[in-house]
């Protein structure tokens, strides 16, 4: 197929950036969206124009490194990561707009690459269980009921891609935050730090410039790992309890 791409080009954090139009041809159904961009980049290199910078690593939908706004949708028209989006989701002649994640807390580094280190700082503020290596008790001494284990697992599958933030009109990181809170709160191991954890993580979230949650639900709809919206309820209720404590 032949496509028209409108791609955000921005040389660096201080450049204002603009959409530039490119044409690509001979795109096949079985290419991933990123492979289609690889084709474009080979073409640009041949013409002596600098290739478009974008992030990716595993190209398997698990590392969370890729992430583009594709015609206004985080990761594109399907509920998956950009690397797992295939060109069979598009038609010959389509015009596709490709932009980076937009959020104050995710500054653009270059072209389609953004800085998501705010997520790491949220984890640093309490997204862990404090146990030193060598200090762990025998694993089976602490059984975990299957339903709790399953819910913890579902929340733990967040890949930290940032699509939730990009999809949210408030640029809130509550789905990401709620997923970590829920993962650790469901487990017996996570109880002793439960209150302190939620307070400090929420504070860090706000400090980074993410917006508040107004229950719009775009985050969960865009999440490639289908993290359910109710992790935000868990987050809120843990936060309230911790404040009362």
């Amino acid at each position, binding site marked *: 197929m032949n496509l028209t791409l409108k791609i955000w080009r921005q040389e660096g954090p201080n450049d204002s950036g603009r959409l530039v139009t490119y044409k690509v041809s001979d795109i*096949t159904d*079985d*290419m*991933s969206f*990123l*492979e289609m961009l*690889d*084709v474009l980049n*080979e073409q640009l*290199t041949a013409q002596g124009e*600098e*290739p478009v*910078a974008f992030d*990716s*690593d*595993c*190209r*398997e939908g*698990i590392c*969370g*490194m890729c992430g583009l706004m594709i015609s206004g949708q985080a990761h594109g028209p399907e509920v998956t990561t950009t690397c*797992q989006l*295939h060109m*069979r989701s598009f038609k010959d002649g389509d015009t596709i707009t490709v932009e980076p994640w937009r959020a104050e807390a995710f500054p653009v*580094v*270059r072209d389609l*690459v953004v*800085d998501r*280190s705010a*997520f*790491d700082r949220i*984890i*640093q*503020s309490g*997204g*862990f*269980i*404090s*146990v*030193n*290596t060598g200090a*762990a*008790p025998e*694993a*089976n001494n*602490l*059984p975990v*009921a*299957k339903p709790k*284990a399953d819910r*913890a*697992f579902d929340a*733990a*599958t967040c890949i*930290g891609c940032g699509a939730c933030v990009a999809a949210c009109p408030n640029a809130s990181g509550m789905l990401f935050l709620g997923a970590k809170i829920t*993962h*650790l709160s469901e*487990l017996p*191991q*996570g109880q002793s730090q439960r209150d302190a954890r939620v307070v400090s993580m929420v504070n860090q979230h706000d400090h980074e410039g993410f917006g508040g949650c107004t229950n719009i639900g775009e985050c969960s709809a865009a999440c490639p790992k289908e993290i359910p919206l109710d992790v935000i309820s868990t987050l809120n209720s843990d936060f309230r309890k911790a404040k009362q404590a």
Partner: protein
Amino acid sequence: MTDTQTQDLPGGDMFTVGEPIADTKAPGGPIEQMWTTAKFDNKLVNPANRRKLSVIIVGTGLAGASAAATLGEAGYHVKSFCYQDSPRRAHSIAAQGGINAAKNYNDDGDSTYRLFYDTVKGGDYRSRETNVYRLAEVSTNIIDQCVAQGVPFARDYGGLLDNRSFGGVQVARTFYARGQTGQQLLIGAYQAMERQVAAGTVEQFTRHEMLELIVVKGKARGIIARDMVTGEIETHLADAVVLASGGYGNVFFLSTNAMGCNVTATWRAHRKGAYFGNPCYTQIHPTCIPVSGDHQSKLTLMSESLRNDGRIWVPKRREDCDKDPRDIAEEDRDYYLERIYPAFGNLVPRDIASRQAKYMCDEGRGVGPMVGDFRRGVYLDFSDALSRMTREQIDAKYGNLFDMYQRITGEDPRVVPMRIYPAVHYTMGGLWVDYDLETNIPGLYAAGEANFSDHGANRLGASSLMQCLADGYFVLPNTIRNYLASGPYEPVSEDAPEVVEARQSVESRISTLLSINGERSVDSFHKELGNIMWEYCGMERTEEGLRKAIDLIRALKDEFWRNVRVLGSADTLNQSLEKAGRVADFLELGELMCIDALHRRESCGGHFRAESQTEDGEALRHDEEFAYVAAWEFGGEGGAPVLHKEDLVYNFIELKQRSYK
């Protein structure tokens, strides 16, 4: 230090032979007590002195992140580096299947000794006994540690941990977290490391790439790294350096590795004197989604567990290859694994399943689209399983894998048979290390997939994650302690000649890459190298092919430095520049891999030399000649590499031929 009797060795015109080497660190005595003895004998560091001691760790995968967390907890000053935007994205995240540990929760006869035995045998007797025993010994602590961190392993209805069994063994010792074990383990290690970042013991440098090792007075003292956002070339100094930078499977261009996986960190150390062990041992995984066209950028693994219920076949006749598989009658199908290996059938080990698939396609009986002039695929068919089990049962077992396959290929494996083909998956070679995981450069350590020691010529499923975490959580913190106890080492100044030299070499390499301004993109070189490697140093190797490959690689390398086109500048984010540096190193590594493969005229594990097979076509080892580790020393720019042999001494396990017939 080299001698001249290389002419008798296969490929001896390509290298010279140096002095034999040996691991001198493993303490003597019974193997069950070695690690306890070593931990006791290793010197201690007083807690107050620890913060004056510093360690650089390159890599934040399971090996690097667990080491950073643990050394940070102990109070050392740690600097951690990765090329991704967050440590949480290291390639370990992609591991699906599981992690082994000799917990014997099922009381099915498992033990430390059995895990040790299975691992040595599975590695075709080319790993080091003492290191492997220790791996088995600490394996159980890994599970305890991860559970305490909140890693959500699968559990049974009683709330206890669940296990399954994995290719090549008869006990259920694999712990797993759905199909995302690597992700969950890595998040655990990452969180432990971030806790230390908050505590101030670990300093984290993301989007930083190590481009050179600094060696001062014979000791590893730091690295040169490039800030990939600003392009700044930075010098980082420390008392010790750990490379936990993963494997080099991307030398093949197409592999199941993440796009950024590279050999640069270990290759630069190799050029500075660190020996490279067994570079030719590549693991090829039989169940990957086949290549669909020229633009493919990477391959995706389908969990090996699919072979439990799927049956593998190709058409008996070439004419049937482009037919709809559903129209090929039962009697016209060749279930070749069941035919050749009736005892193991579709569950033969990875190397055997892979090689047979290749033979079928080489014979012209492959299926799927033509890629070049070949069809590279065989069927993995679930129709029998679907008639035996309900749709719900099969979906509960494999549903997410089926969906993943469907997303990539556009075909539903519940309706048409899946197509699979082998792909490069893992590399057993890596920097040579001793029992302490120290390379031959004092103060330089290698951990995880970046070292060579534990898997021999072949890696059993679920044992790499185990090794990475064993190295990072339990081994390194104890062995580095011994080294650091003699520190802090004399401070190194940024103006020291060795530091200046390292920095200048990085700068000049970058400016050279940017100034060539030739005709060809970096990717085009990488793809061409990958084709050469796959064709001649892939699943099957011959002397003739390897010699041809070496010539081709030398010519390609020459062309690269004359004709590569890298646009943009050095002082911004520049992904072509990043790739160019990595491909330049892959070109050198590829040549060494071929030389290593050429000299090892035997078949073992992931190394199959066509000249060395039994009458019925199985791999034939030659223990009298080749029961050694090939540790290669860099021979200087344009010089021949030097082979140092470490004899593999088996005191506790008897060497046997593997047989799956």
